[in-house]
């Protein structure tokens, strides 16, 4: 096993622990936005897709890469936009006293 792959495993495990600690404190109120936001973040596969689509390693790589770029971009753009749309709706009731059902 090379030292670089051991390093990668370190990173994976430590990131997992950090992630768990951070996410453990997200209230159930925000579980849907959490899911939607992590989904957008997992669109990070876009980074790999860009390399496959842009590095001119043959037709197959390019085609697969372009499809992957499209799919990952849908997640990044759509995921962040809809999460923001959701988070905008969460507010304390006092801001509109007595009118929670206005819209």
């Amino acid at each position, binding site marked *: 096993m*090379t030292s670089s792959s051991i390093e*990668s495993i370190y990173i*994976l495990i430590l*990131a997992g622990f*950090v*992630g*768990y600690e*951070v*996410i453990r404190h*997200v209230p*159930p109120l925000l*579980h*849907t*936005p*959490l*899911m939607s936001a*992590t*989904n*957008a*973040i*997992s669109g*990070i*596969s*876009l*980074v790999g897709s*860009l390399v*496959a689509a*842009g*590095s*001119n*390693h043959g037709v197959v790589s*390019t085609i*697969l*890469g*372009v*499809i*992957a*770029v*499209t*799919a*990952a*971009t*849908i997640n*990044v*753009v*759509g*995921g*962040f936009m*809809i999460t923001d*749309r*959701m988070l905008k709706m969460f*507010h*304390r*009731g*006092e801001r*509109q006293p*007595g009118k*929670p*059902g206005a*819209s």
Partner: protein
Amino acid sequence: MNTAWFDVFYLAAAILFITGLKGLNSPRTARRGLFLAEAGMALAIIGTLLRHEIVQFQWILVGVTIGSAVGAAMAIFMPMTAMPQRIAISHSFGALAATLVGIAVYHEHAPHVDRIEMTALGFEVLLGSLTITGSLMAFGKLQELLPGTPVIYRFQNIVTLTLFALAVGMFIALIVDAGAVPVFYAMVGAGLLIGVLLVLPIGGADMPVVLALLNSYAGLAAAATGFAIGNTVLIVAGALDGTSGFFLSMMMSRAMNRSFANVLFGAVGAAKPQTQGGVETRTVTHYTPEDAAFILEQAQSVIIVPGYGMAVAQAQQAVAELATLLLRRGAQVRFAIHPVAGRMPGHMNVLLAEANVGYELLFEPDQINDDFQATDVALVVGANDVVNPAARTKQDSPLYGMPILNADQAHTVMVLKRSLRPGFAGEDNDLFYERQTMMVFGDAKATLIAINQLLKEQAHDEHASMASNGVASPNGVRHEPVADVPGTPPTTVRQRPA
């Protein structure tokens, strides 16, 4: 540009992702957190585009343009009630990207793939492919393109597990000999098939667990991509996504008092043979919206328990309006949200937020369960299993042991429901037959609109009489305790063979 610079971009992106998710710990910091995560994503993308390997941009532009248009359209036009479907389909897109990158890397390098790279690629395409089809199946069920009930056949678990063993076998064969190209594609095929088979027997109410689990797999597939192409930010972001999904599915399983294995292989909710042989007749009392409005008018405290039925009936706005009307009358109004109410984690919270209900009115079971006994009315809107007392007492019930909301302890329980059909778990709900329970059948939205209208008229009349008589307060007359007077006499009595 020196390669070390790309790593700086990726490092910054990773830090921004983590601080961004930390922002989601509170609704006040959530949007700022999301903005940080967006900035992280932008940095990661810019850092990647600056790399030397990327020599052709035209195809990237095509993909990014189409993806942005589709993604933005989905984000803008998708109604909030369709959120579970959207989440499911986007897991599918994420997994598709990871899988295709894996295939592209394998295609380029085979047969010169070393064992470590092959291990990473194997995880990537296997997890990725089963997430693609698994999420599509979940999407189909949630969108009602496929039957929402579990699909069961003989030897189901044996077939799925055999296929899984076969896929693992192919994976090991590839690690031994990475040059076996047909085996690689057969493994992708097996992964796709496993995804279908895994979600086929899972029914609607178990969707929160499955969606969270697929979220986790999509993240792990991205992390494996990071290993395969030696990219740290992919590993970090994938790990975050993976743990988040895993954590949520743990939470959801715990909220149902079931194990992962039971959710995945238990097939709850399938048609079961009827165990009771005898014909037992139980009566349920049928009330009208007028009865309900009469009781609600007098209630000092109300706890609303929303369920998936609220989402189906699109009744969240009507529920919010009712809450406003009751608050204006001076009643205490709160919402009790069970973690597995709805079809995804946090489903009810999002719908109520959309209807402008302030989040300080929303409570988790632990926070509110002790208060039901001192509450005049528990209003159950389209929820069933999460208020079924069988979970406490009936040991042979599939619900047994699930922590439920103590709606049955309120003085009056008002249930808005389409029919007496048992909930997802197939367990008849004794609560519906209790003396203090008022069943109001019909579409929840129509019922609520009728109740709201009556409450508005009542408020109007009170206001008018106050103006003419000069009476100080409509609350001057002390109301009877509502508990003992559940509405006007029943209008209809329905009989039902159990």
